[in-house]
């Protein structure tokens, strides 16, 4: 199998962007989307998702590269079992190069992953010193190990993103970090509510609705959660989203 080389210029650019968390309008959701999108773009992986632990220690999906329903289910399952949960609990990388034979460890997860067309998975803890705040999940449709370089790159990306988030914590304080994380968790719900509204209004699937939302936010340099809120409040009409290029490129469901 041919391995795609890593675009070093783009990688460097990504590191610079991930290190830039001290801006006034820093947004956890947009930041995490940057991380998962670049993982898929730069590494030899087919889908990526990021789960962060909430105040009660439960893993919750914050960002995903792809809206495929079966993939979302895989992220969601991992609040119960799966490589992300293991990586989060142990603080170490958890990889499985061939999910077809992973049944014993995470039976429900492995079955759902294979069913969704995935053959291999890697989960990297979001960790700085003793603190683990979540995990990055990488899926591939072909079985086999990630290359060393890809693994090291993914680890470096996850580390830089974690430092970015925790640096906030050092500079501001614990209260602000809690508020920020909970805001992100609640924003994720607003995004889901907006997706439902857009999907029904435009007669498209949830993946298409997300693409429209995101295309609109990107083309106008707005935060995803702000656009979602405006859609739910009715101040951004769903017809406004129609002109976005992303909508013509509907994601699979």
């Amino acid at each position, binding site marked *: 199998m041919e391995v795609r080389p890593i675009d070093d210029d783009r990688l460097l650019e990504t590191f610079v962007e991930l290190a830039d968390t001290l801006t006034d309008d820093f947004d956890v959701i947009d930041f995490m989307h940057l991380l998962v999108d670049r993982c898929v773009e730069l590494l030899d992986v087919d889908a990526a998702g990021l789960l962060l632990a*909430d105040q009660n220690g439960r893993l919750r999906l914050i960002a995903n590269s792809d809206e495929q329903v079966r993939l979302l289910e895989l992220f969601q399952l991992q609040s119960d079992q799966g490589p992300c949960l293991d990586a989060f609990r142990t603080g170490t990388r958890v990889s499985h190069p061939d999910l077809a034979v992973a049944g014993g460890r995470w039976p429900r997860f492995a079955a759902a992953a294979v069913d969704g067309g995935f053959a291999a998975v890697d989960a990297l803890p979001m960790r700085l010193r003793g603190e683990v705040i979540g995990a990055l999940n990488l899926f591939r449709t072909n079985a086999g190990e990630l290359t060393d370089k890809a693994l090291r790159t993914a680890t470096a990306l996850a580390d830089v993103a974690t430092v970015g988030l925790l640096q906030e914590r050092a500079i501001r304080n614990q209260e602000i970090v809690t508020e920020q994380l909970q805001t992100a968790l609640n924003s994720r719900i607003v995004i889901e509510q907006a997706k439902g509204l857009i999907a029904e209004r435009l007669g498209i699937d949830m993946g298409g609705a997300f693409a429209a939302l995101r295309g609109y936010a990107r083309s106008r340099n707005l935060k995803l959660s702000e656009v979602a809120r405006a859609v739910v409040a009715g101040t951004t009409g769903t017809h406004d989203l129609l002109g976005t290029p992303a909508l013509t490129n509907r994601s699979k469901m």
Partner: protein
Amino acid sequence: MIENHRQRLHALLAVNGDHSIGALTRICSVAVLELQVDGAGVTLVSRAGTAQAQQRLVHASDPVAARLEDLQLTVGEGPGLTAVTSGAPVLVPDLAAARARWPAFCPDAQHIGAAALFAFPLTLGAIALGSLDCHRTTPGPLSPDHVACGLLLAEMAFEALLAEVAGRAPDDVGWISDIHAEVHQATGVVSYQLGISVQAALLRIRAYAYVHELAVAVVARRIVDRSLLLDTEN
């Protein structure tokens, strides 16, 4: 661990007074005990974040909590109102240091006798019902465990408020924190279909689940895959 926490809080709520006392009253009492604060109050807000915002004090555990809620209502600002609009808890370990954020609220709140205030939103995405505000008469932060507990109690208060209006569905306990996204997507779908707010849409989904004795998640999934269409009647 989370489930143990939740079960313990539910048990505490069950023993804390009989059911003739409202759920919110019991939640405030449990908050005072569990978060080791001096008082707690719940204020409901409608049309949060707009010029037509209206607040209604629902319960306060003591006179200081009642006066704090009144104060937010009078000056139109405060940690509770910020929590409602942001959808995240607002943790203020020292009100004296927060005057820049709420210039009208903080001095009077201190005068009333509060030194720290921790506000937990009763929200679910864009649906904002109000806040659970807990105060201390001495400054100092809440421990992470207490913050976790406050968030759970706020979830329970949200559930209790919906149950009051739309009845109790079979999976009522803890469904809000269900990580599956369908219930939120279904809320958006129904909101558009019936031309109603997301809050009203969630109540409709809940009421349907209650009447048909189905779990909220099951009803939501059917709405999202378009095998169930709620009409204006049911």
